[in-house]
């Protein structure tokens, strides 16, 4: 089903783009202010990458992207931004032009144009539409929750009693990135401290409003309301709104997205997000937290072997120390089914389920082969 959803044209194009040297899987910096430090530039004092990385190289190939220690649980960002991971996620997401360009009731959504074109012109239009669609499919990064800000600049107990309310100072100088803006708070007890993340978000939204954001938490993201939305099946809407409302490393964003992924997992509705920009992060979430069994079964049931193998390969990149990764590395030339089989045997949490799915797939393959032979 996945194969039929992708139009042959777009699939061809995305393969070309993935293999070309011009197209690099990088997170677009203008789109997300919070990931301006992820490309791994030296000299950036992003808190996430300061934590105990000590001596690992930029691509993280030696260190092992998700070591089974407590450290990695705080920092999926490093694994996510690995080029190999990005390529696999892009492949898995696919490119269904009909879905990407689906009509959405939104401001600025225009009326569709109808034009008479030659075959060549049509080809060109498809090309440019596919390039633009790839931009629409840029994935919001998966990061660890940001560390709380806890810096006191000055203690002045002699100012006690001057004010009953806090004084919040923000620097509104021009051309300063949002994340670097200084915001400090003078408490009634005289302490001058840096503003917390929540205070920062609210104050920045007041002085430098971003479209699609509300000051404070929208009621939709409160636990009960979120559950209602999820039961209505509005996964894509929730994820899109979370993306525009929160910063990517906001604990609220992580809570909302993870809850949405879990809901999708329990209902098995993985295909809802296929060919959207949230498919990659969802797959990565399951892979990072070792919950890919149901997903693997879903792919096998659709008879997309490539997707299944991609998923297992992704698992091996993110968890290089796992048993099946080592086994596959030792095999001289493993077939796709062998790779999946190795994973099912050694690392699957629901071993029987996955192995049954593999067997069903093999039977289906044999039966289709035999019917083709008969023809």
């Amino acid at each position, binding site marked *: 089903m996945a194969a039929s959803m992708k139009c042959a044209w777009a699939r061809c194009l995305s393969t070309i783009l993935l293999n070309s040297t011009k197209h690099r899987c990088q997170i677009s910096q203008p789109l997300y202010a919070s990931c301006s430090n992820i490309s791994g530039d030296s000299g950036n004092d992003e808190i996430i990458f300061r934590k105990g990385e000590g001596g690992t190289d930029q691509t993280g190939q030696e260190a092992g992207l998700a070591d089974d220690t407590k450290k990695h649980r705080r920092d999926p960002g490093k694994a996510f931004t690995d080029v190999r991971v990005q390529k696999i996620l892009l492949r898995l997401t696919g490119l269904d032009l009909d879905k990407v360009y689906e009509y959405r009731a939104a401001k600025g959504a225009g009326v569709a144009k109808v034009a008479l074109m030659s075959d060549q012109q049509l080809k060109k239009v498809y090309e440019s539409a596919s390039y633009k669609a790839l931009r629409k499919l840029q994935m919001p990064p998966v990061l660890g929750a940001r560390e709380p800000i806890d810096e006191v600049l000055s203690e002045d107990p*002699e100012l*006690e009693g001057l004010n009953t309310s806090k004084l919040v100072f923000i620097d509104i*100088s021009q051309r300063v990135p949002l994340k670097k803006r200084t915001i400090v708070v*003078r408490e009634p007890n005289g302490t001058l401290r840096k503003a917390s993340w929540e205070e920062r978000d609210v104050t920045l939204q007041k002085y430098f409003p971003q479209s699609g954001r509300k000051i404070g938490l929208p009621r939709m993201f409160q636990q009960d309301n979120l559950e209602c939305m999820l039961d209505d099946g509005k996964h894509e809407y929730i994820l899109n709104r979370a993306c525009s409302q929160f910063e990517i490393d906001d604990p609220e964003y992580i809570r909302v997205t993870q809850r949405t992924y879990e809901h999708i997992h329990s209902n098995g509705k993985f295909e809802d997000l296929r060919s959207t920009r949230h498919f990659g992060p969802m797959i990565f979430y399951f892979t990072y937290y070792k919950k890919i069994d149901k997903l693997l079964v879903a792919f096998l049931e659709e008879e997309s072997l490539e997707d299944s193998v991609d998923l297992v390969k992704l698992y091996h990149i993110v968890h290089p120390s796992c048993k099946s990764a080592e086994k596959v590395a030792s095999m001289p030339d493993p077939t796709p089914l062998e790779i999946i089989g190795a994973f099912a045997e050694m690392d699957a949490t629901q071993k029987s389920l996955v192995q049954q799915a593999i067997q069903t797939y093999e039977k289906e393959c044999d039966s289709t082969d035999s019917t083709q032979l008969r023809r």
Partner: protein
Amino acid sequence: MALAIRFALFGCTNRPFFHIVVMEKRRAQRSGKIKEMIGSYDPMPNQDNQKLVAVDFQKLQKWLGFGAVPTKHVAELLGLGGFYPIHPMSYIKAKRKRKLMEKQPADMQAKEEAQETEAIQVNEDTQPVSTEDASQ
């Protein structure tokens, strides 16, 4: 004339709002002769019990370089913000309020602050010099 970094009172009745501006010290604040607006100060606390102060520090430093002098209250505010050392009047006011608090209940504190806002209004809102008007 003295170039000052001062408050300019805007807002309306019972709702003060100050812009932090660069203009000559003894001019009427709503005369339209502001050289540059470099920030704002909202003396009424919001829902989170915060008073918001925004300052364009780059411009502030530029005008200080041109010889602009902050007024007393602006200097106090900047001291509380950490740009300047804390103004001695901040310490004095704090001490006076603590003394009052010992004698009077907490709701008088809010009254004191309201009176202080009025004090800023009175200081910043100066009459235009009459000779200038005559020459125009």
